[in-house]
Each structure stands twice: as C-alpha cells, then as structure tokens.
C-alpha cells in the first residue's frame, strides 16, 4: 500500500472538567495510526464513543490533534491549511436536518463557494451549479429551494454536491446514510460509489453499520475506546475477525439468514466510561479471552496484512 494519506500516533484529548492544573480529560483518540491508499474507500467502524467521528473531524481540519500528525503525500495536514490544501479534503455529515443552512437556497450556497474559491469564472457559476445538480441526480429546479423543502435523501445529495463543488481529492463521509431509510440509503450509497469511481477520489467512510461498510469499503479499521483494534481488507476482517471485539460485533449485528450458534460470542457488560483510563487493554473488562497479561500491557497492532491489537488473537499472532 503506497502511503498517500498517513496518520501517525494521532491523539486527541478534550478537557471536560476538573481544574486548569488537574483537568479531567476525555481521551477521544489514543495514538491512532493508519494509511489510506489513493483512490480506495477506507472504512472506519465502531460503536459510540470509539472516536471515529473525532478522527473524521481531525482529518477534515475541524479539530486540532493533541499529539501525532496527519500528512498527505508527506505534507502535514493540520487545522490551518492553505486554500489549496483546504479544497483537497471535503466532508459530508450525518444529520440531513442540520447539515444544510436552512436560511439559504441551494444556489446561493453553491455559488458562494464557487465565488470564494474562484473555482470557475463568475459567468460560469450558474452552469457549474447546474452541472453539480445533475452530478448528484437532482433536478436543476431544486437550486431555488431551501433545505426545508427537500426530503432527507435530497438534502444529503445537496451536501455531496457542496463537497464536489470544491473538486476535492479526499471525501470524508461521517455516517452519511445513518439518518436515512433503507430505500433512500441505497440511492445515496450508489451515488457515492459512482462518484468515487468516476472522479477517482479517495473516501474515508465512517459508520456504525457493519453491513454498509461491508458493501462499499475496500479496507476497514475497527475502533474501540479511541484505539484501532483491527485493520485490514474488508473481506478478510469480516470473514475472519481475529480480534475478540470484531468477533463480538459480527455476532451482535442482526443478519438476514441466521448464523449457526457458537460462531461468535456475545459480549457481557457495558463499555467503560471514556473518562476512566484503564491499564492494559481497554477491552479486557468485556473480553471473553482476557488473560493476566491483558491487564498490564496494552497490545500493539501486529501482523502482516491483517493487523490486530490483541495478546490472544484468533489464529495466533503471526497470521
């Protein structure tokens, strides 16, 4: 995998109380590293509080990391970016209800961006807006509408058009279809897959829905409490989950044809509070295979093409 977009030991802590000298920290990301090959769809999956959204916000420049670094083609990518760098990474958000400015028509929103970044000369702005609409399969008369008069699916398509307006190379999608019905979700996913293919973009797809990740992502990283516990090709991770948490996730996800019992183990208890910093492996409290070593030492990602951060991964430590 040629390292195009690299994330090295990225950490993000939010102070949520205590005093200035001894702040109580919410450690959202705990030294996460990953590499995204150009032109692929990289999935990040995990439950609430695992830090996947924080990762998305750091990549898109909305949140500043407290440690580690993000780089694109070797050039660091922080919160303060030049306008060219800014255009290269764009984002689509989760909630169609609040991701578009309710007081602005679609045309005003798009033309503001096109004008500000001088993407097209002034006289070409209207045509560009129409092109963007057709690109996201929306009727051009929707340009005059305000978000209030559009359905959930239509609003997400407009959000995608907004991202495309800046002709980005990387699209970060933070649970774009979570708020949509299945029938509408399918059309938005098809649209995204089509755009990635046609425009050769790279997409980072954040989701809690394993079925959707399975369907559209090439690689996937499974996260738990701010750490990456397993990373690899989607096919391998989903058919042969080596980390007990990934295994538990596969067990918990309801599926159309029931799976033979015993294939996967159910998880006990609940996820610990992110404020508590747990020694060793954070998952040991819920892990059926937890051993004494897990309590003291936090396992690192190991393995060749399917990395797993566990002392007792399925299929041994060298697969």
């Amino acid at each position, binding site marked *: 995998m040629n390292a195009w977009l690299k994330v090295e030991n990225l950490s993000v802590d939010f102070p949520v109380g205590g005093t200035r000298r001894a702040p109580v920290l919410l450690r959202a990301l705990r030294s996460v590293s990953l590499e995204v090959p150009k032109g692929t769809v990289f999935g990040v999956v995990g*439950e*609430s509080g695992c830090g996947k959204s924080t990762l998305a916000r750091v990549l898109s420049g909305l949140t500043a990391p407290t440690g580690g670094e993000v780089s694109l083609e070797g050039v660091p990518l922080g919160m303060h970016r030049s306008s060219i760098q800014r255009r290269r990474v764009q984002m689509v958000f989760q909630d169609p209800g609040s991701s578009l400015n309710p007081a602005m028509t679609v045309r005003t929103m798009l033309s503001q961006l096109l004008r500000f970044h001088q993407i097209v000369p002034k006289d070409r702005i209207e045509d560009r807006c129409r092109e963007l609409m057709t690109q996201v399969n929306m009727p051009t008369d929707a340009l005059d509408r305000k978000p209030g008069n559009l*359905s959930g*699916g239509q609003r997400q398509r407009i959000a995608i058009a907004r991202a495309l307006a800046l002709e980005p190379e990387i699209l970060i999608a933070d649970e774009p279809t979570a708020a949509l*019905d*299945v*029938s*509408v*979700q*399918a*059309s938005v*996913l*098809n649209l995204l897959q089509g755009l990635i293919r046609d425009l050769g973009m790279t997409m980072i797809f954040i989701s*809690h*829905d*394993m*079925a*959707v990740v*399975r*369907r559209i992502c090439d690689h996937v990283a499974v996260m738990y409490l701010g750490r990456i516990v397993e990373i690899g090709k*989607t*096919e391998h991770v*989903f058919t042969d989950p080596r980390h007990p948490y990934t295994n*538990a*996730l*596969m*067990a*918990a*996800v*309801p*599926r*159309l*044809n*029931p799976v033979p019992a015993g294939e996967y183990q*159910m*998880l006990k*208890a*609940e*996820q610990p509070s992110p404020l508590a910093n747990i020694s060793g492996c954070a998952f040991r409290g819920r892990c059926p295979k937890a051993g004494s070593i897990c309590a003291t030492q936090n396992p690192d990602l190991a393995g060749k093409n399917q990395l797993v951060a566990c002392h007792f991964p399925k299929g041994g430590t060298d697969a």
Partner: protein
Amino acid sequence: MSGLLDITNLRIDLGQARTPVSPVGPLDLTLDVGECLGIVGESGSGKSLTLKAILDVLPEGLVRGAGTLRVMEQGKWVEPAAKDLRGRKIGLISQEPGAALDPLMRVGDLIGEIVRLHSGCSRAESKTRAIDLLRQVGVPDPEKRATFWPHELSGGLKQRIVISMALACKSEILLCDEPTTALDVTIQAQIVDLLRDLQKQHGLGIIFVTHDLALIRQIADRICIMYAGLIVETGPSAEIFKAPQHPYTRALLAALPDIEASSGNLQPIEGTPPNPTDFSVGCRFAARCALATEACRAARPLLEKTERGTMVACFHAGVAP
C-alpha cells in the same frame, strides 16, 4: 397457541381535519401468548402510531378512529376501555430511552411510583420491590443505581429501567416501539436477549416495531410489513424472507445491504412515500411500483391468504419484476 390480543379494523384519524383523513389503517392485528410479532416499515409508515393507538396515547392532533380491540382475560375475550389496559394488561417501551424517564426524579422513585400505583404497597416496600425489578432486568449494583438520576445512566441501562417499569405493571403484553434504535449494536443484542428471556419467563406477548429488517428476521416469529399506514404483507418470518410476495417487500430486501453478501449493487426504491393528505384511492405503492397497472390505481388490494400461510395485499403478488 392461545390468543392474547385481537385487533380488527383499527384506524387512526387526523383530529381536526374537516374531511376524515386517516394516516393509519384500517388494519387487523393478532398476538398469541409467548409470541413475538414484528412490525416493520420505513419512516412515515405509521408503525409507531399503531402501537400508541393500542393504548390510546396518541400524540396531539391524532385520534383513534374506528376499530375493536379485544384482550384474552381468564379465557374469555373482553373489550376493555384503553384506560383500563394502561399499566395493567399492556406495557409500552419507547424509542428514546432518555426521554421516557422524568429527569427530575431518581430512578428508584420512578419505579417505586409505578409499583405503588398497581400494588398499593407502602413506600418502603415499593423501594425494595424496585431494587428487585432492577436486578431482574440485569442492572448491575441495583441498590446504588436506584439512587441515580436518569441523566447519570447510559442508554442501555435507561432502557432496562423502562422495561422494569413495564414488568412492575405485571403486563402480559409488551409493546416495544423501536426500543434499540438509539443503542449500539452490542447493547441492542443484550436488550433483545433480555426481552426474549422475559418472554419465556413470563409468557409475554411482544409486539416489536422497527425499521431494521435484519433485526426483525432475528427475533420475530410473525411479521407485518407496513407501507403508508397499511399492512401490505404478513406471515411467519421464515416464509416472508424466503419468498416475499409483495413488490414493496421485495424492493426493501433488494435495497438492504446484508453483512453476508459483499458484492452486487443495491437497488434503491425511487420516489418518496405518499403524504396522508393525498393518499390515492388505489394501491398506495402503485406510484413507486414497477408492476403497477391500471387495476392497481383503480382500487386498493386487500390482504388475501396465500398458499404459503402468509397474506399479501397486491393484485400481482408473487410475479417476478
């Protein structure tokens, strides 16, 4: 299995509309002891309103129209007023666990209040009953947790408390309105297991409403698929999933990404569900259905039995697109 609940011709109407407009119904529902009936449908299909109509706790502006509701009481079908059902025969579990608990009261007091309401025991006794109920629904360290305020608990724990309140009423029927939609998948699995254990333990009848087809497949014995306020197909879940007859059911399954199959393109369903104010006289799915013919637009198909033990409301049921 012996019957528990029998609803016929249930209809929900818009309160002040001049011409009667009913976004939901008419529809029939039955539930047997120990059975789990799954109702699945997309947004706006009226699945959640149906549940609320049973206990007549409909939101503002909606009223329960026609329809009879009978419940099995010591072997006899009786038709009680909705008021008598509430908190006695039927319990309700809502979607947003946080919003279901009064934020200004401690958890122990909330449950205690329900226990006192139905058993009339003293305040002290209701406290111990409450702690016992918490243990029954798998809340760790119930004595301490009883003193917590709702906002100090996780989503999963709050949902368990809501379930314990239903148990406090010794309900025989549990109406679950998307109880796990707001929870993580691992927690959802735990809640679903809890419901299943309680069902076996108390012989409860459960009506489980959700938009998640895969979840329904996993837990429901019988399924109803709702679209635009009507049941379009119903029957044992294995049969429905093996050979869906109604075009809408088939389209849903085609649009659903399943964790097993990784390839093949998802087929979205074009268009959007109709607005109740302008329901067509014919089949309400006709506008989006590939098989729609003039007949579909002229009259509304009613649920008919099929040879596979299911029922479907479509003139062209079973025809491949």
